[in-house]
């Protein structure tokens, strides 16, 4: 049975580059759902390859009603709030995505492969953006099961560390992203009832500019803080 693929954040910074590449290489018989929230798609026409959906992280359960629950599902989760207000990030990225995962696990009768486009900032937390990405990583690790395979990719430059290079490197990201998550292999595996590519540890999307960031925690050990 061919899986269906849900791309969240399809009109966002990375999504609008990734979507054409997905559509271009799309094989017949598989449904591709592109979900958007704040920015409406420029061409929202619905075809046999692509269906557009409105997706609000705070009410993400609604999207699941529109997906076939008896097919394996691949979710490429790019959506996030981009807000720098922590309360908003908590409400949407953190709690919203966690509810989304819980609903997926509860209602999908077929296996789910969940790819989270995380960020280098998930380990630095320079921005609230990174807090949200990191929280979703923890949610995914908690949600992992034989029928729910998470795959976490930390990207530079989309926001936070390396953003000044985004306009230079962005064009390379979709291809690298799909390669790093082993997209074609994983879709094929889902079709054949085998587990897709996934790992509990984050993988990194690095290119020439991103090589400047060395993965690893920068936090100090236990030290006094206070007043």
């Amino acid at each position, binding site marked *: 049975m061919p899986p269906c693929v849900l791309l969240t954040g399809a009109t966002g910074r990375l999504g609008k580059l990734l979507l054409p590449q997905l559509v271009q290489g799309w094989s017949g018989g598989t449904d591709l759902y592109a979900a958007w929230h704040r920015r409406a798609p420029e061409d929202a026409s619905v075809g046999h390859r692509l269906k557009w959906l409105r997706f609000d992280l705070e009410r993400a359960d609604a999207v699941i009603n529109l997906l076939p629950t008896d097919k394996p599902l691949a979710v490429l989760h790019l959506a996030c709030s981009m807000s720098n207000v922590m309360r908003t990030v908590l409400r949407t990225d953190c709690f919203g995505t966690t509810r989304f995962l819980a609903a997926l696990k509860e209602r999908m009768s077929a296996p789910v492969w969940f790819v989270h486009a995380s960020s280098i900032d998930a380990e630095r937390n320079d921005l609230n953006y990174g807090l949200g990405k990191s929280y979703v990583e923890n949610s995914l690790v908690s949600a992992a099961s034989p029928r729910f395979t998470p795959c976490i990719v930390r990207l530079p430059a989309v926001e936070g560390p390396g953003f000044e290079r985004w306009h230079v490197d962005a064009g390379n990201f979709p291809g690298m992203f799909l390669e790093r998550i082993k997209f074609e292999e994983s879709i094929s595996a889902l079709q054949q009832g085998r587990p897709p590519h996934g790992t509990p540890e984050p993988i990194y999307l690095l290119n020439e500019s991103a090589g400047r960031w060395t993965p690893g925690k920068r936090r100090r050990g236990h030290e*006094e803080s206070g007043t």
Partner: protein
Amino acid sequence: MTLAYSTAGDATKPPVGIGEPSLSAAEIAEFEEQGFIGPYTLCSPEEMQRLHPLIDEAVERKSAPFRRDKWESRHQDCRVFYDLCASPEIVGRISSLLGPDIVLWNSVVFNKMPGGREVPWHQDRDFLLLDPNINCSAWLAIDDATPENGGLQFIPRSHGEQVPHVPRVRANQFNARADLAYVDRSKAVDMALRAGQFVIFHKDVLHHSEANLSLKRRMGLVVRLTVPGVKVNTAGLFSGHQVYVVRGEDRFRLNMMGMAPAD
């Protein structure tokens, strides 16, 4: 005086109190703009005065979870500190900022005796051991905290930027301080607190306290709260570290969970 709801049963699922204090939309907006909000009252100075013997006895118990530092995380072994940390007055208001499920992950008693040293300007962000770094703190005055005895100061709106910190140069200094080239001290405001009052502050707001130049002790308790789904880096803390669900529930179970101490 009842400081907290009973948590003698299942500490993983404390009740959510009816009529629990919360922040209004205007207060939330003020916190988000200023980086702190308060003071609020947990109890009267007289009520806090009556707790002093309990607090003084509790600090001296030999059961401190972090053996090297008797001031650290005493909510783990002393009920009086647990009840202060888990009080609806603090937890309810912070819930307005962090959401319905709240986890107590750290507390520290700061006991500044007469002559006690200054704590330099700093942001807490790099001292917290959370992944992700989601934290909201309350600083509760156990004694009156005034400009004379080393009360708190904040720089409003400073939570929007990361200020470079420089390491200490002598062993008896505070671990790291904000580079003063990036601190506009002319904007500092005093946060005087009566015993029993507390202030809520953002992990990135610049804060500081002067040396205690008075003849009175200035003791405070900082209460650090986060949300389920945040992993505490216990390797940077101490073995036996536990978290406590003080509101709502924890569906993640990422951390070792504790029960409220009996006494």
